[in-house]
Each structure stands twice: as C-alpha cells, then as structure tokens.
C-alpha cells in the first residue's frame, strides 16, 4: 500500500500510457477483450487516483522525482535546484485529477456502444487513453516544460478524436480549427518558457516562483501564458473553435473535451497563483480575469439562444459556464493578499473551483444525452426532432437533471456552486452577481426551449426512437449520481475536496516549500 501511494503519481501516467499502445494490439485479437481491457485500465486509474487524492486532501503535498533513488527528494545531493523531471501533486492537482479520471471512465463506458459500428476502434481508445495521460500530466507536473509537452499530447490526441468520424467532411473542418488554435497556443507557451528560462536558468515551477522578479520580460511571458491558456479553455474573445470542435466530436469525446478545456483553465490558475503569485499586480490581473469571465458568460449564453443544432447550443453554454469559473477565481485573485481574502475571497474561489467539477459532470451528462439522441435519430437539428420523451424515458430524465443543474435550480449541484459565486462576487460589486444571475435565467430559458422541441410533442414519425443501449445509460448514470450526490451534500464536498484545492492554490509559499524545502 505504501509503495503504491509513493509511486502513484508516476503510475497514473504510466498505466494509461502503456495501455494506450496495447489497446490496438488487443483489438487485433478480440474486440470484446479490448473493451474490457480499456474499462479495466480506467477503473484501476480511478482507484489509484482516489487513493492518492485521499492522501493529498489530508494536507500532504506529494512530490515525485522521475528516476531518482529517493523519489520524494526533489533536489539531488550535489545540486542546488531541482534538475530532474518533478511531479508535484497538491490539493488542486488531485482535485483536477479526480475530475479527469471520473469523466474519462464515464466516457469510456458510453463509448462501448456509441462507437460499436465504427472502424478503427483500437485507435479510438488509444487516443482516448492518451487524452487521459495528457490531462493527468498537465495537472501533476511541477515543471513548465513538461506542461508544454503534456499540453501537446492532449491537443494532438483530442484533434485526432474530433476528426474521428472523418467521413463527415465537417468533422475534419472542426479538427483543423482545433489543431491550428492549440498548436499556436502551445507555441506561445513554449516562447514564454524560453523567456523565463533565459532569465532564471530554471524550468521547475516552484524554483522559478521563488526567484521571480516580475521584470518586463516576465510580464510579456505572463501575457502570452494567460492568452494561450484562455484561448485553450474557450474564454470569449478566443472562443471560436469551441462550438465547432464540440459539435462535431463524438459525444463521449465532447464530454472529455470539456474536461480538457478545464485543464487549461487549471493551467491558467496555476500560472497566476503559483508561478507569479504575490509578485503580480493582483488587482489588474484579477480585473482582467473577471472581465474575461463576464464576457464569456454573457456572449456565450446570448450566442446559445438562436442555435438550432443541439450540440452547438450546448457548446455555447459550455463557454458561458467557463465564465462562472473565471469570475469566481478572478474575484479570489483580485482579493488575494488583502484582509478580505479570508472572509469572502476564499468563498469566491471555492465557488469557482467547485463549479469546475459540477460543470464537468452536468455538461458531460448533457453532451452524452445529446449524443444519445443523435445515436437514435441521426440528426442534431432541433427542428427535426420531437416527442422523444415517449420512447427514450431514461434519456429524458437524465436531460432534465442536467438542464436543471446547469441552470442552478436548488436540489442539484449547479445551485451550490453558483450560490457561492453570487454571494461573494456581490461584495466586490453587485453588478457581477446581477449579471451572473441574469445569465443563469437565460440558460434556463434556452434549455426549456431544447426540452420542449426535442422531448415534448407527438412521437416522431418514420423514425424508430428506442432507448439507447445499456452501456450508454451506465455512462450517463455515473454522472447523474455525481450530480445528485453533490447537490444534496454540497457542504461535505466543499469542506473535504474543494477547500483543500483552494487552499493549495492560494498558498504559494507552501507549494515552493514542498519542493525546494524552505530556501
């Protein structure tokens, strides 16, 4: 058990990476065996992640050095700074890791039936497992260059999966947009890594943070990093790739892409809080993040209203929900270091971070229900569907739960995190809360429209709309169970999972200490 815990952060990368390249080989022998293998690998990953998270949430930061005789010591005996590849898992990393593994597991269950008729399933699961590797790697790495490498692994595998149904020409169109944006963003990240390395001769985040001087070059690097990660997470001025890529990817992949963009959000927060932290001009950066959040919320939801394509509509809502996370954490960043931070700045960040996990679950669920509709009736156009509640009863229930959760209706989890954001943003400026509530109402309105046109009315003629296969229902029910549990017991979740994550994010000195030991 101790051995497992000690090496868990490396195993979480190694197991899916190894399995990714084993999957197509097993696919050659037997298709069923490969499905079982992929699910088993993801369940093992999930269990290791839970063991690691359990330990991290008690307040211990895990440091793992690749290839060292003592993996817990970041600085080798003869050196003064960390020179090897270092993984560092604190509360925030473990929190994001839990989201990634859970959604991937649900997506893999769903995929079994969803891609049954497609060819090239071995490669599909290879890319899916590589996405898991990229996400976990970005969350755990303590090194800015590895952040770039895992970012590229994540973008390349996601682009491959967006184009998975390449016989629809538009799938490749969406994937092309995605890969151009991601590779440009990644090159901006690499350029700013060069700027930081050129000044400090360091790549380790903790060591960099401890010597950060906030020179002009650092400011340029910060601007590039914020722009690149905001672009990758789909914040508004750079959001144009999101609806195209989300619409056209297979539904389980869309659910994973939502998490992938949240991982970029995590990288954005990591750069702001850990890498720069107290040296930043916090008020300015805080206001920029809040402004990005408000823009994303408002533009996303207004663009969603006129959409006719069910997945495109949901994609615009994904943009608008990202705005809530930016708003919550932006308020926290704005107040960081002031006396108000402990009272409501912390609450705002808890709201923003809690919203990440809630959004991953309900938006994942909504995309999966949209995929279920597409799977049965073969269209995403809202005008061509109707009366599905007659024949797809489980899907209807899942859709209602997801729609109520995204609109922030009380018994579900969206309400819990949105309330935290409303309450705390109000102290900074009442306008912020008013806009946030307004956006919630418009969200509800547009989901009422979707519900009405897809599920109500007389049954469709000429199309046999039956309930979807069991594996898809299983994938959706994993997420639904999460939504209901998190909605019923938000206080337990906030104090045990979200609070350690926020504390880890806000505590820059603790992060530096755990790697380079109080230098």
């Amino acid at each position, binding site marked *: 058990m101790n051995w497992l815990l000690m090496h868990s952060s490396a195993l979480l990368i190694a197991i899916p990476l190894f399995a990714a390249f084993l999957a197509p080989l097993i696919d050659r022998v037997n298709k069923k065996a490969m499905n079982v293998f992929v699910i088993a690998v993801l369940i093992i990953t999930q269990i290791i992640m839970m063991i690691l998270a359990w330990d991290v949430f008690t307040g211990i930061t895990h440091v793992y050095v690749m290839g060292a005789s003592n993996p817990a010591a970041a600085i080798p005996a003869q050196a003064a700074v960390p020179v090897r590849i270092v993984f560092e898992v604190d509360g925030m990393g473990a929190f994001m890791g839990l989201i990634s593994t859970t959604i991937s597991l649900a997506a893999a269950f769903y995929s079994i039936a969803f891609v049954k008729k497609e060819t090239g399933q071995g490669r599909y699961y290879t890319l899916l497992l590589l996405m898991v590797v990229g996400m976990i790697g970005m969350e755990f790495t303590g090194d800015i260059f590895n952040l770039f490498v895992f970012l590229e692994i994540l973008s390349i595998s996601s*682009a491959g999966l967006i184009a998975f149904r390449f016989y629809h*020409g538009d799938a*490749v169109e969406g994937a*092309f947009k995605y890969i151009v944006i991601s590779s440009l963003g990644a090159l901006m990240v*690499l*350029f700013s890594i*060069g700027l930081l*390395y050129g000044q400090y001769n360091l790549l380790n985040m903790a060591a960099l943070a401890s010597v950060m001087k906030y020179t002009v070059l650092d400011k340029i690097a910060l601007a590039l990093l914020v722009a690149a990660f905001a672009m990758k997470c789909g914040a508004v001025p750079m959001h144009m790739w999101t609806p195209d890529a989300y619409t056209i990817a297979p539904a389980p992949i869309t659910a994973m892409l939502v998490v992938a963009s949240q991982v970029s959000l995590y990288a954005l927060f990591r750069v702001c809080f850990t890498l720069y932290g107290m040296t930043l001009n916090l008020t300015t950066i805080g206001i920029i993040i809040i402004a990005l959040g408000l823009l994303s919320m408002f533009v996303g939801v207004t663009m969603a209203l006129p959409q006719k394509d069910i997945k495109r509509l949901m994609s615009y809502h994904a943009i608008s929900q990202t705005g809530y996370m930016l708003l919550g954490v932006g308020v926290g960043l704005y107040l960081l270091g002031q006396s108000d931070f402990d009272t409501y700045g912390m609450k705002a960040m808890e709201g923003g971070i809690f919203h990440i996990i809630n959004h991953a679950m309900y938006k994942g669920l909504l995309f999966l229900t949209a995929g279920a509709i597409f799977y049965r009736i073969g269209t995403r156009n809202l005008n061509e569907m109707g009366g599905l509640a007659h024949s797809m009863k489980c899907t209807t229930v899942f859709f209602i739960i997801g729609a109520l959760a995204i609109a922030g209706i009380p018994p579900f989890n969206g309400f819990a995190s949105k309330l935290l954001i409303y309450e705390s943003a109000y102290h900074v400026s009442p306008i912020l809360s008013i806009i946030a509530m307004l956006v919630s109402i418009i969200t509800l309105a547009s989901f009422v429209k979707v519900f009405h046109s897809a599920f109500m009315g007389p049954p469709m003629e000429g199309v046999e709309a039956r309930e979807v296969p069991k594996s898809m229902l299983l994938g959706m029910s994993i997420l639904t169970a999460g939504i209901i549990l998190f909605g019923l017991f938000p206080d337990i979740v906030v104090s045990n999972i979200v609070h350690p994550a926020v504390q880890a994010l806000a505590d820059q000195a603790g992060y530096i200490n755990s790697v380079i030991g109080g230098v």
Partner: protein
Amino acid sequence: MIYNLPFFAVALLIAVGMYAIIFRRNLIKIAIGIILVESGVNLFLITLGYREGGVAPIYTNLPPGIEIPGGMALPVPQALTLTSIVIGVAVTALILSFIMRIYRHYGTLDSRKIRRLKE
C-alpha cells in the same frame, strides 16, 4: 547589435508566420505559417543556450583550458528544442493530413468556402 541578430530573426519569423495564419486564406499557407512560428520559437530557444566560443557540453571530450561550466554551451535549451522539433513534426503531419481530407470533401483549400459547420 550583431549579437542580437538572431533575436531579430526570431521576431521576423514569428511575425511572418502570424501574418500567414491570420490573413492567408489557403489552408496550406496557414500550415506554413504555423511551421514558421515554430521555427522562430525553436531558434529563440537555441539562441538562449549559445555562448560565444563555447564548446559542446561533453565532459569526457573537453579540449584543455576550457573553464567549467562557463566555457560550455548550455545543454538544456538544445534538449528542449529537440523535443519541440519532434512535437512539431507530429503536429505538421496531423495538420497536413487534415488538409488532405478537407480537400477531398470540399474540393477547395479556400478557408472562406470551408464553413459547412456554421450553416
């Protein structure tokens, strides 16, 4: 001035690449733009590690009279550049294969005509 020449080359490469990505309509030209930006960033990384008159950082094959480590080129930026080149090859291959598929479906490479998703 002369020592800053590589940095001007970096700026030029990135500017030309960005121009191609933003203003060109042909997908192949967009791909070339990305490759140009990537070369610019790689050149930037490799320039950071350069030392005038420095030798390769290999201890076993060191000419006499070289100061350690001041007389050696920095090895880390070279390792970073190598990694970045490998990733760049993968991205370029992926982009070009997407362009091939798009051409097969749409019969054009003009990005203004490839907008089936928006309709």
